C-alpha cells in the first residue's frame, strides 16, 4: 500500500507525482469529481433500463395506436384509435372482469390464509421454530413456479389424489356438486375456475405471508401491553391495535397477489376451461394473429389498473411496509 496521501488536494512535490501509478492518479481524479464518478456508476444501469425497458414500454404505447390491416395481416404504422375501439367490446370486457374478479378473490383468500400463519409465527412460535417457519414460506416462493403449477395438475386430475380422498371418505357427491355449480364448476377440477382459483392462491400465497409477517414483527409490544393494561380484551386489542398496524402489510402483499394473478397466463392455460384471461388474450393476439397493436392496447388495461392500485396502496402506507 502506498504511503503517499492520494487525497491531498495537490501533490506538492515532484517526487510524489512521479511515484503515483495510473490507478492512483485516476482515483484522485475521480475523487475530486464526484459527479463524474456518480455518472460512471449510474450510467450503465440507467442507460440499460432507459433503452431496453422504458424504451420497450414506449414502443408498447406507440404500437397500441397502430392497427392491424385485416386483409394484408400487416401492422399499419400510422396513428389511429381503431385498435382501442376494437378493445372495448363486450367480449373483451368479459375477459377483463373475469381476470380482475379472479385477482380480487385470490387476494382476499390469500390474506385470510396468510394471516393465521404469520400471526402464529410472530406471536407464538418458539424462537427455534421461527427461522424454520420463515424458510418454509421462502422455499415455495423461490422454487420453480412452473413445477408448482404442474404439481396441481397431478393433484387435481380426475384420477388424482383429491378425487381419491373424496371417494375414500364417501364424499364423491360433494365433489360432483361443487363441479356442477355454474361459473366455478366444470367437467373436472383441472378444467374449472375452482381448480384455477386454488392454484392461484397456492402459487401467490407466500407473497402475502412475508409482508404480513414483517408488519406483525414491527408492531411494538408496548402498545399491546398498554391496551391490555387499559382493560382491552384480547379481541379488542387485536381489532383496534394489531389490525390497523398490520393493514399496510396486507395491502403490500395484495399488490403482488393482485398484480401477479392479473398478468398470468400459465395457470389459466394449464388448468382453466376455455374462457380467456387477460394474459391469454395478450399472448394469443401477439402470437398466432400477429396483432401486436391489439395486444399492446390490451396490456394498457392491467397497467392502468395497477397504476390506480399502486397509488391507492401508497395512500394506505403500503410502501413503508415493504
Amino acid at each position, binding site marked *: *500500500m502506498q*504511503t503517499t*496521501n492520494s*487525497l491531498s488536494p495537490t501533490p506538492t512535490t515532484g517526487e510524489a507525482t512521479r511515484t503515483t501509478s495510473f490507478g492512483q492518479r485516476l*482515483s484522485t481524479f475521480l475523487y475530486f469529481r464526484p459527479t463524474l464518478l*456518480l455518472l460512471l456508476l*449510474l450510467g450503465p*444501469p*440507467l442507460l*440499460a*433500463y432507459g433503452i*431496453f*425497458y*422504458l424504451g*420497450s*414500454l414506449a*414502443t*408498447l404505447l406507440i*404500437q397500441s395506436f397502430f392497427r392491424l390491416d385485416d386483409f394484408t395481416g400487416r401492422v399499419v404504422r400510422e396513428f389511429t384509435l381503431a385498435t382501442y375501439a376494437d378493445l372495448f367490446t363486450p367480449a373483451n370486457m368479459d375477459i377483463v372482469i373475469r381476470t380482475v374478479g379472479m385477482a380480487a378473490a385470490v387476494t382476499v383468500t390469500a390474506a385470510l390464509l396468510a394471516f393465521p*400463519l404469520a400471526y*402464529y409465527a410472530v406471536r*407464538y412460535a418458539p*424462537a427455534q421454530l421461527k427461522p424454520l417457519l420463515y424458510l418454509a414460506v*421462502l*422455499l415455495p416462493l*423461490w*422454487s*420453480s413456479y*412452473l*413445477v*408448482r403449477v*404442474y*404439481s396441481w*395438475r*397431478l*393433484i387435481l*386430475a380426475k*384420477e*388424482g*389424489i383429491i*378425487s381419491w380422498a373424496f371417494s375414500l371418505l364417501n364424499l364423491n357427491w360433494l365433489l360432483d356438486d361443487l363441479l356442477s355449480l355454474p361459473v366455478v364448476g366444470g367437467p373436472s377440477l383441472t378444467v374449472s375456475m375452482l381448480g384455477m382459483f386454488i392454484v392461484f392462491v*397456492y402459487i401467490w*400465497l407466500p407473497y402475502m405471508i*412475508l409482508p404480513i409477517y414483517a408488519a406483525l414483527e414491527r408492531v411494538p409490544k408496548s402498545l399491546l401491553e398498554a391496551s391490555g393494561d387499559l382493560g382491552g380484551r384480547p379481541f379488542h386489542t387485536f381489532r383496534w391495535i394489531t389490525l390497523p398496524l398490520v393493514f399496510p402489510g396486507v395491502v403490500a402483499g395484495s399488490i403482488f397477489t393482485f*398484480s*401477479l394473478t392479473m*398478468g398470468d*397466463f*400459465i395457470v389459466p*392455460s*394449464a388448468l382453466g376451461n376455455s374462457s380467456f384471461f*387477460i394474459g391469454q388474450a395478450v*399472448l394469443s393476439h*401477439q402470437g398466432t394473429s400477429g396483432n*401486436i397493436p391489439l*395486444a*399492446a392496447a390490451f*396490456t394498457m388495461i*392491467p*397497467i392502468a389498473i395497477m397504476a390506480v392500485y399502486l397509488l391507492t396502496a401508497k395512500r394506505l402506507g403500503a410502501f413503508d411496509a415493504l
Partner: protein
Amino acid sequence: MPFKSNHPRAPFGLSLAALGVIFFLHCPFSIILLYAFTTDDRAFTFPPPGLTLEWFGVAWNRPDVWRALTLSAQVATIATGVALILGTLAAAAVYRSRFFGRDAISFLLVLPLALPGIVTGIALRSALSLFDLPFSFWTIVIGHATFCVVVVYNNVLARFRRTGRSQIEASMDLGANGFQTLRHIILPEIATALLAGGMLAFALSFDEVIVTTFTAGQQQTLPIWIFSQLTRPRQRPVTNVVAVFVIALTTIPILWAYRLTRDTSETAGGGK
C-alpha cells in the same frame, strides 16, 4: 412442549390453521416426488399402481430436455452476470450520493417485478416487432436481466447500508486510493451479498416463463419446455422427473443464499 419458551400458548385453532397453511404450501412437492416413480404413463392415477426408476433413465436420454436445460443455464448465467454488474453499480450510486431522482431509481428497478409479467414481455415483443429485430439468445437474456437486476441491487444496497462508511473512510485515511479501497475493503464486505443476490437472480432467471414466452420465439428454455408439456403432454413421466430435478436445482441456491444472509437484517429472498 419440546421448546423452551416464554411465549403464551397459541390458541388451538390458530396453531391448526398455521399448520394447515404450511401443509398446503409443501404437500404438492411430495406429490411431485411420488409421481416421478410411478409406473403409470397414461394418467395421473393416485395411488400409483407401481413404483419404478425407469423414467429417470428415459429422461436422461431425451435430447430435447438437455437442449432446454443447456439454454436455460446459459441464459441464467449471462443474465446473472449482467444483473451483478448493473445492480452493484446502481446500489453504489444510490448509497454514496444524493442526487435528483434518487428515489426513482429503486422504483424503476422494481417496476419489472411489480408490474404484471406480461407487461414486460409484450413491451419487449413490441419493441422487437417495431424495429424488425429477430428473436435470439440475446433477446431472452435482455428480458431476464430487466427483472434480475433489482434482486442484486436490493441485496447489495442493504449490505452497504448495514456496514456503514467508517471502514471506507479509515481505508482512505490510511492512504489507500479508491481502487485499493474497492479491492480490499468494499468487495470483501459485499461478497456474500453479491453471492446471495447472484444466486437468487440465477434462480429467478432459470425459472422465468412469462417474459420468456414473448422473447424466445421458437427457442425452448426449460420452463417453456415444461409449459409445453403442461398443455400438450408427450410423455408424462418424463415431465415428472424433470420437475423433481428442477425442484432440487432451485432449492439448493435458495437455501445457500438464505444461509449466507440469515444472520443479517437483510435476509435474502424476502422481496422477490
